[in-house]
């Protein structure tokens, strides 16, 4: 037995000075328990020394004095948690009180029955409505942009309009390459560089070649817009050709050259007025 258990046994003794044989064996080796035995003996002696009322009337008078003093615990110390429960800080006090007083047996039973019913419903195969839809996966913006350019081309009747569409198409491809280049594999970058080249050379430049019949002012404005956009694409690609991861730099170099060459062709056409 532990000292705590032995000390409880000592306190329970009729006479702490007459321990059992087991206790005595322990007391011979444990100073702490001997101290408890001594305290218990002292308390017993003090109790024995208390004055005892001599008669029934005196006992009644003694009891009345005790009752007049009132309960031994006069007030409960205020703690943080009890303060939060005090009246001034409890806007939901009536509700909380009602909930505390409520018999939760029936609501708990109802909840359990509902869960059971749902479980049985799921377990039994049968005709049910469509399963709830998961959130839609993100769509590829470049594909949406390409479809948009495509339908615009289907309604474009002039070389000017087509050149503008192809310039925007090339710009979108360039933008995609800038977004993904840090994580892209060489084949992804190669594919984008090839698409950029195709849209610029066979789209933008090819349509610029067909603008001979376009009025000069309109042609000049259209070529200027395309030249400016190609300049931005060229500058972006040039910058990334220096700063991008080594494996992707050559693709940006290729795209910058494509934009530079096309821009040069368009500049010549604009200045020559052809």
């Amino acid at each position, binding site marked *: 037995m532990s000292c705590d258990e032995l000390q409880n046994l000592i306190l329970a003794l009729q006479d702490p000075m007459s321990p059992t044989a087991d206790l005595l064996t322990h007391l011979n080796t444990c100073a702490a328990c001997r101290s408890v035995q001594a305290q218990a003996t002292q308390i017993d002696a003090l109790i024995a020394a208390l004055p005892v009322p001599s008669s029934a009337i005196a006992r009644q008078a003694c009891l009345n004095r005790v009752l007049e003093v009132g309960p031994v615990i006069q007030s409960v110390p205020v703690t943080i948690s009890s303060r939060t429960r005090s009246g001034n800080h409890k806007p939901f006090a009536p509700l909380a009180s009602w909930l505390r007083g409520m018999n939760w047996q029936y609501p708990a039973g109802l909840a359990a029955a509902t869960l059971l019913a749902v479980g049985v419903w799921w377990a039994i195969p049968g005709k049910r409505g469509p399963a709830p839809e998961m959130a839609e996966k*993100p769509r590829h913006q470049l594909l949406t942009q390409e479809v948009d350019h495509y339908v615009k081309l289907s309604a474009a009747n002039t070389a000017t309009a087509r050149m503008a569409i192809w310039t925007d198409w090339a710009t979108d491809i360039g933008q995609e390459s800038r977004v993904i280049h840090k*994580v892209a594999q060489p084949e992804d970058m190669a594919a984008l560089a090839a698409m950029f080249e195709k849209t610029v050379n066979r*789209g933008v430049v090819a349509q610029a070649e067909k603008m001979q019949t376009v009025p000069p002012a309109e042609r000049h404005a259209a070529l200027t817009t395309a030249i400016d956009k190609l300049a931005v694409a060229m500058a972006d690609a040039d910058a990334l050709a220096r700063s991008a991861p080594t494996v992707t730099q050559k693709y940006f170099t290729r795209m910058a050259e494509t934009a530079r060459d096309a821009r040069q062709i368009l500049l010549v056409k604009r200045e020559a007025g052809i």
Partner: protein
Amino acid sequence: MNRRAACTLLFIAVLSNWADGQGPAPGLSAGEQLRLLSRNRRLLDDMVDRGLGLTDANTPLTRVDECRRTADRLALELREAVTRNDGDRLAEISDHMGVVVSKGLVPNLQVAREQITPSSPDFGKLQQIHGEAARSLGDAQGLFPTSGELSKSRRVQDAREKVTTAMKEVGTPDNR
């Protein structure tokens, strides 16, 4: 139940409602964008080629034919999406097909039908291309599953409806 539990439940309810109302994330990470590019690389390149073909098509009739070819190309993606049981992909490609048909094929078909009369030398060609377009869209509509989990998806049902609408817009060649 105390006040803390009530507040927690309320917070969870509000959070769930908010999460339920969220659509796809507006800004994708570079990694997610790369995943999309890898999946669409060939389709993107084909779209550029189809665009170049469309640029060279100088008549409404040839444009109709180009748009029909593009719809066929998109139908290949639809077929693959069905094979993969990918409802989101079906919805995405159906949207693109719907746009190509209603904003590309149908307006050019209407112009071609106005320009080409039964006495025109191109009338036979018009009837043939129109018929091919109708068949292409009918085939695309037939790709959608009519049984199984995928067919129960609201998103897939909407996608099928879009292709059906596109097919109705194209109609069939008449005997003028």
